[in-house]
């Protein structure tokens, strides 16, 4: 099954929703770095959560508290199988 959220999609959301430019490969390589180290603040993550909610109806609670891209991607994909 295709994951709902890939690092490429997250990188694209970071750019469109928060103006943080990072390429997908680098995001995946640094996926255990804190979002803040990658330049994404708490509001930016909330904006990404909001965008995913609008696309998919809901996002697991606590998503906006995730510290790293890996935590975030795993939480979103575990709780929301594609097509849900």
């Amino acid at each position, binding site marked *: 099954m295709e994951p709902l959220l890939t690092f490429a999609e997250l990188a694209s959301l970071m750019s469109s929703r928060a103006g943080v430019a990072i390429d997908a490969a680098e995001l995946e390589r640094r996926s255990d770095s804190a979002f803040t180290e990658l330049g994404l603040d708490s*509001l930016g993550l909330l904006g990404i959560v909001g965008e995913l909610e609008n696309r998919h109806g809901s996002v697991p609670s606590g998503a906006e508290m995730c510290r790293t891209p890996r935590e975030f991607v795993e939480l979103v994909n575990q709780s929301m199988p594609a097509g849900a």
Partner: protein
Amino acid sequence: MTRRVAVTGIGIVAPGGVGVPAFWDLLTAGRTATRGITLFDASGYRSRVAAECDFDPAACGLDDEQIATADRYVQFALAAAAEAVRASGLDLAAEDPWRVGVSLGSAVGGTTRLEHDYVLASASGSRWDVDHRRVGPHLERVFAPSTLASHVAEAHGAHGPVQTVSTGCTSGLDAIGYAFHSIEEGRADIVLAGAADSPISPITVACFDAIKATTANNDDPAGASRPFDARRDGFVLGEGGAVLVLEELEHARRRGAEVLCEVGGFATFGNAYHMTGLTTEGLEMSRAIDEALAHARADRTEVDYVNAHGSGTKQNDRHETAAVKRSLGEHAYETPMSSIKSMVGHSLGAIGAIEVVACTLALARGVVPPTANYEVPDPECDLDYVPRTAREMPLRTVLSVGSGFGGFQSAVVLRRTGAR
């Protein structure tokens, strides 16, 4: 010789308390004025609770022109200013108008009306090239944030320094602080100082929804604002206005005015940290407290009551508790600290002025207002928050603090006359 600054009149429009008597009754009874939003249909929103004013401008003495041309938040300020001037006993027509100033704060100004007319001009958000023929009259006066101080200055014939201050949620404290400075420095003898906001509109509710800053406790509107309580989950949006007559002390004494209290000190700093985020240490707010106390020549052990910002967000209440402990040391544990936002909500820029009015009344009447809805202690918030019931006690020195988006951290010290 230092010019001292007296408070000789107060006026207020607050949720559940239009006018000083009703406001004080609400606070001392520990009643809450938070409820489901009625000002617009909030059914599609995450947070549907607010603290609204049941406000009748005509009953508050506003004339037809003021009702027709002034935005709701400006009307709050006009009503509060009229009440404050009346209470002060001043005959402003007999004063030198060039020595009378106005200093009022607002965080979001006319956004409610701006949004209303935007909807008309854009055919409900369907076009970027908005149609100017569809908007209502006097929109230019709504667009200009200085309309707030301008309206109040015109109503009272003030020709001295007139300013509108907009430092987010510290606007009210800062407007009072700047007014205090202008009298202290000799630029004015009398300043009508305070703040007003009426932000309960779709755009403001939606923007706080987007950052989950407001409560989602829609099932219990009356109990939704829970500052310092472990169950707190965000602030309750409010509205209102408050104005104080600040007057050079000798000027007040010469005319035999009743001095409610003195403004002793003010300070503000930026946290240079994040537009909405707060540190856990509260260093910058603590510094504002220290400077305001030093300005008032008050030792930290003299603080009898802290009126908290106490918005009821997780991070704010923790931040503020840390800041107060940093400034007051062990004395913090012996000092009552309450948040009236538990009762009247968080009216953004207005609340600082509403809280200074509450502090003035607390000093004058020897009663500390409570933190309503406070039941479950949070280990990170371990001070005396005056749970649910007002407390009678003599007060000589009180501190009011505020914190705002943009990183603003402000503190005002009020003292009973003769307390220094």
